[in-house]
């Protein structure tokens, strides 16, 4: 236990010091934090509950639009803001910006949670691939529909309020880094707390055999909806932060980007190892490094590389990095290994 505390402290200190150690990578580090949040929350569904969703992008995009809309709408008429597009006819004062951001993030986290609760009963009754395709449809439908709504910018996009002119150029990066790092710490603590309760065992029971779990007297639907709501909360929060960080929201390319972010979160969780606490975090980090490498060195070919990467990960590493480590060093994971039994199994293979 003592070792864990030291590890957490080291990571926390590194996280707090990172923007000052690597000042050139502040935006990248913030995006990494958001990616980890998304992968970790996807893991609640896909890893622990066995419900492979492509639909968490819905909450992410909703959070993005909601945060920006609240931030603008609190002080200025929203329709005129989106009408003016990139030209800054309205300017937020610093206090307006931060108040708007705070209120926007709260709304961005709460509303998707409520929506998840409302649609959960209908959607989570689907099983297996029907659930996967249905959530894929949800994400794309949300993107297409929001691309037709005038008040949030329709096809031309929505420019989020620019960062106020305080503290020089560095302040923006630091502000968004600490915001996303805060969200990451919050998510990690919440998920860790959840994973140490009976709730996690119930989710695992649903994954392993839902009918049996129901027969044992667990109200599976209730727990599935709660699990989805937890995901939606953090996805919305991450979306709100990402909207401010990117500075521009487009319906299909930034917010409801099922083809990129929607698949990324699945991939990161699988790459790291589904159903583990640290898997999505490791997976997101490795994936982000890979992705940035692709984007830098194979510019133009990045989607080709991404497609190949997806196929390779899915076919050859379905267990992920944590699964591989577990296979290799089972003792570290607190598993007692019977050497003779293991040898016999290897021979059987």
């Amino acid at each position, binding site marked *: 236990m003592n070792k864990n505390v030291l590890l957490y402290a080291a990571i926390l200190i590194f996280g707090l010091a990172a923007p000052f150690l690597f000042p050139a990578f502040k935006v990248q580090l913030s995006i990494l934090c958001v990616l980890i949040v998304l992968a970790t929350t996807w893991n609640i569904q896909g890893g622990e509950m066995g419900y*492979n969703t492509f639909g968490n992008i819905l909450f992410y995009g909703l959070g993005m639009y909601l945060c920006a809309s609240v931030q603008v709408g609190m002080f200025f008429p929203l329709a005129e803001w989106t009408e003016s597009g990139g030209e800054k006819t309205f300017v937020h004062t610093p206090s307006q910006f931060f108040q708007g951001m705070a209120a926007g993030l709260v709304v961005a986290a709460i509303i998707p949670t409520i929506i998840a609760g409302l649609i959960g009963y*209908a959607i989570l009754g*689907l099983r297996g*691939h029907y659930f996967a395709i249905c959530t894929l449809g949800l994400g*794309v439908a949300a993107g297409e*529909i929001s*691309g037709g709504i005038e008040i949030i910018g*329709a096809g031309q996009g929505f420019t989020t309020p620019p960062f106020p002119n305080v503290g020089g150029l560095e302040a923006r990066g630091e502000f968004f880094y600490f915001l996303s790092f805060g969200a990451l710490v919050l998510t990690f603590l919440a998920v860790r707390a959840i994973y140490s309760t009976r709730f996690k065992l119930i989710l695992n029971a649903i994954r392993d055999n839902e009918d049996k779990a129901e027969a044992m007297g667990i109200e599976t639907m209730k727990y599935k909806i709660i699990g989805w709501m937890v995901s939606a909360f953090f996805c919305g929060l991450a979306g709100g932060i990402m909207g401010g960080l990117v500075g521009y929201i487009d319906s299909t390319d930034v917010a409801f980007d099922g083809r990129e972010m929607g698949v990324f979160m699945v991939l990161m969780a699988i790459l790291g190892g589904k159903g583990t606490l640290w898997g999505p975090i490791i997976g997101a980090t490795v994936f982000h490094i890979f992705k940035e490498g692709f984007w830098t060195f194979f510019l133009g070919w990045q989607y080709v590389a991404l497609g190949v990467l*997806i*196929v390779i990960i899915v076919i050859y590493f379905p267990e992920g990095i944590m699964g591989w480590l577990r296979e290799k060093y089972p003792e570290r994971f607190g598993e007692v290994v019977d050497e003779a039994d293991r040898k016999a199994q290897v021979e059987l293979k």
Partner: protein
Amino acid sequence: MDFMVFQYPMITVQACLDGLLLGILFALIAYGMALQWGVMNIINIAQGDLVILGGYIAYFMYLYGIHPAWGVIVSPFIMYFIGVGIYKLVINKVVDRDLFISILATFGISILFMQLMNFAFGADVVLANSGYGTTMLFDNNVTLPNSKIFSAFVSIVFAICLVIYMKKSKLGRAIRATAQNARAAKILGVDTEKVYAATFGINAALCGVAGALISITFTIHPYMGLPYTIRSFMIVIVAGLGNLPGVAMSGMGLGVFEEFADYILGTEFRIGSVFLLLVLILVYRRFKLSRKREYLK
């Protein structure tokens, strides 16, 4: 919102005719989906991208001065081999695995194809002009491009040929046997690996035909694949596997729905309404099934 479609009966007729002819094409793609889903138990997200690729083959011929209608013959041949190639490289490793793995793997293929087509053919919306002209009906109130009639006719011919092939030929029987019970088929001497490869190839060939027809009648674009996948998935879950009349009917129904959604909600919500309809159908299905389960209680 625009309800002009109900005030002028001719627009209604136009929408219905367009929808029916479009729906036959959807049904052809969906039949391929039903085939591979039934036989190999995988869901191919790259289905729509195979369609678009088939369309680009026809368009490519058109660029080189060959009439694009020949694409209907050429494209399935090329697509068959592309399909078998995809099977050998990727699909045969995911056939026995979890369905979600196949969804993700084909999602990867879909992204790959999308981008490769974007490089090869550019990101413009293109169409291969067949020069078939249009037919005017009802005092010139309803316009019907001849290419749409041609495409519907060709799809029906291909569907009938395929059904006869599946019924009569040796490979067709092997495919049906594998769909019923892969293990039993294997015991009785069917080379299931070959059957799977052929099934995926036939599916790709069907997509090739549909794509060539789409490039003649509508437009193609590298990123337009996913809606076709979703449409065919929707048709298959409404009609069920291995129910060809059902597939044709629900395909045409979907086509008519789309045309009306286009008129009433506006073109910008067309794709959105398709995806929303998918969600609604799945949710409806879920409540229907759960009611059935309650009877059992």
